[in-house]
């Protein structure tokens, strides 16, 4: 029974992370999958969302902290919306400058901004507490649920050990429900706005920008909308992460975890397909977790093992691209569902 509880608790933890990645992947799907915008700085928007939420809805600086700013303990929804807003403003700023230029400039700008943000987070300790990170970010309803569980456990002292351990994990179940509900609403909204004439224009721009302009579409405006909307989702993913992890530090926003793996997820699941984006997030995160177990059985040092995991993910990506070049779920043929 203990093993079952252990596996269940792990699955919950796993699904929360995969769910947060799915939000990132959906954001990238709007930008790349639909509009063909080459954003290789996903980590930057993810990070700025996480830190915005930590500053808005996180605790004030402690006596040992270097940071002197933020920590207003605002409610979680404020943090979530604030992170979307700040991330969107950053995207508007980058997009305004680069989106009219050739497409590779957006790639250069996004990767550059992501790195600059990472360095700002690392060095501007007055704002972000630098390498010490921001601690004790509150999780929504955490005290209430913990109190309830503690009350239940003390009222039922006869419960077997495995049941107690299961109940102690209640909060994670709640957070999983929160993330999945968020994901579900997001999926529904995105299907609505993307399977429409708006999504059709985005796809036309991806296919041929010049031809889209000849069809009377203000290409720069549509690209900017897609870029900003995608970035807002990435910011919200950051907020969801911050309030789950409760601790933010700069390593979590390195290009591998923040950008590369999100691209693998989208390409593997099916670029241009929201279902594919979600599937890819869960699948690739599952494989990533599985490689952790696998490399544990092999005779390598930790450093070698973690390098090998990255190689394995790369191999999986290559295999998918050869076997299913459009990802597991390809694009849907007919975009607009606003008929009937």
């Amino acid at each position: 029974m203990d093993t079952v509880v252990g596996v269940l608790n792990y699955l919950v933890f796993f699904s929360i992370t995969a769910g947060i990645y799915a939000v990132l992947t959906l954001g990238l799907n709007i930008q790349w999958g639909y509009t063909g915008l080459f954003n290789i700085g996903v980590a930057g928007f993810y990070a700025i969302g996480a830190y915005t939420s930590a500053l808005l809805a996180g605790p004030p600086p402690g006596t040992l902290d270097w940071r002197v700013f933020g920590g207003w303990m605002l409610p979680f929804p404020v943090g979530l919306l604030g992170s979307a807003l700040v991330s969107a403003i950053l995207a508007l700023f980058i997009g305004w400058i680069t989106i009219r230029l050739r497409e590779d400039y957006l790639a250069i700008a996004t990767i550059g901004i992501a790195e600059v943000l990472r360095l700002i987070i690392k060095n501007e300790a007055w704002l972000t507490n630098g390498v010490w990170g921001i601690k004790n970010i509150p999780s929504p309803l955490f005290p209430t649920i913990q109190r309830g569980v503690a009350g239940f456990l003390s009222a039922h002292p006869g419960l077997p050990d495995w049941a107690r351990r299961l109940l102690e994990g209640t909060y994670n179940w709640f957070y999983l429900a929160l993330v999945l509900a968020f994901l579900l609403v997001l999926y529904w909204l995105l299907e609505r706005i993307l399977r429409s004439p708006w999504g059709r224009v985005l796809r036309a721009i991806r296919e041929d920008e010049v031809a889209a302009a000849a069809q009377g579409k203000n290409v720069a405006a549509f690209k900017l909308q897609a870029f900003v909307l995608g970035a807002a989702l990435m910011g919200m993913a950051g907020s969801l992460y911050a309030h789950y992890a409760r601790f933010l530090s700069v390593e979590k926003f390195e290009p591998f975890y923040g950008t590369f793996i999100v691209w693998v997820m989208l390409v593997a699941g099916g670029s241009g397909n929201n279902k594919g984006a979600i599937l890819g997030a869960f699948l690739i995160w599952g494989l990533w977790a599985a490689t952790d177990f696998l490399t544990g059985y092999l005779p390598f040092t930790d450093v070698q093992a973690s390098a090998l995991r990255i190689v394995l993910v790369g191999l999986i990506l290559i295999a998918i691209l050869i076997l299913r070049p459009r990802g597991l779920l390809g694009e849907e043929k007919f975009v607009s569902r606003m008929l009937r």
Partner: protein
Amino acid sequence: MLEVVQVSKRFGGLWAVRDCSLRVEEGSITGLIGPNGAGKTTLFHLISGFYRPDRGRVIFRGRDITGWPPYKLYHLGLYRTFQIPRIFGEMTVLENLMVVPGSQAGERVWNPLFRPFLVRRQEGAIRHKAEEVLEFVGLDQLRDEPAKSLSGGQKKLLELARALMADPVMVLLDEPGAGVNPTLMKKLAQRIRELVTQWGITVFLIEHDMDLVMNLCDPVIVMSEGKVLTMGSPAEVREDPQVIEAYLGGQYAVA
């Protein structure tokens, strides 16, 4: 309808178009011919806003449109097609057409959420029109195929069909007959003629196929070395020694 006044465009040291002036009358099928490198496509790019002229003005329906971006010209009723078809390959033939109409309510990101009924109604009307246009150009059997699977000639027809979806006042057709087989060519010529007679669209076209130009266009404008050489009816142009010299190379003089 369209007036080009002393327009020039330079690429490095080369004047692709130099002091070029011409006029396209409403309701005409005006042909633009000239040897390779005469500046015909460059002129089209200058008119349709894909290039900005270094000098000169472009007047469309009494408005100075010099340097306007292409998407704005679309909304003024000036539509262009491309020499090499620029289709949306991953989209179906039907969607290639449905994307064209301007000012669709559903193109504003909030409308599909907040005004779904308006969007649905428009989509129904647009689809209906797209199906009509597909039948007109004879692509109705292929409506659900991805556009990239069409043949070269069919892609040309798709470009023409998109022009009809745009409901323009005037179309610029850049070599509509290039790569089209002779059978399809007859049909294409017929369709272009119907653009004027049935749909009331003024046509300005570049073409290398002399049969098509001589049958279809009146007047014909001849460009050479970035300038307008002459202009007149097909018969006049055919007889003009300057044109024969610059372009037809004696081939038609014998005929």
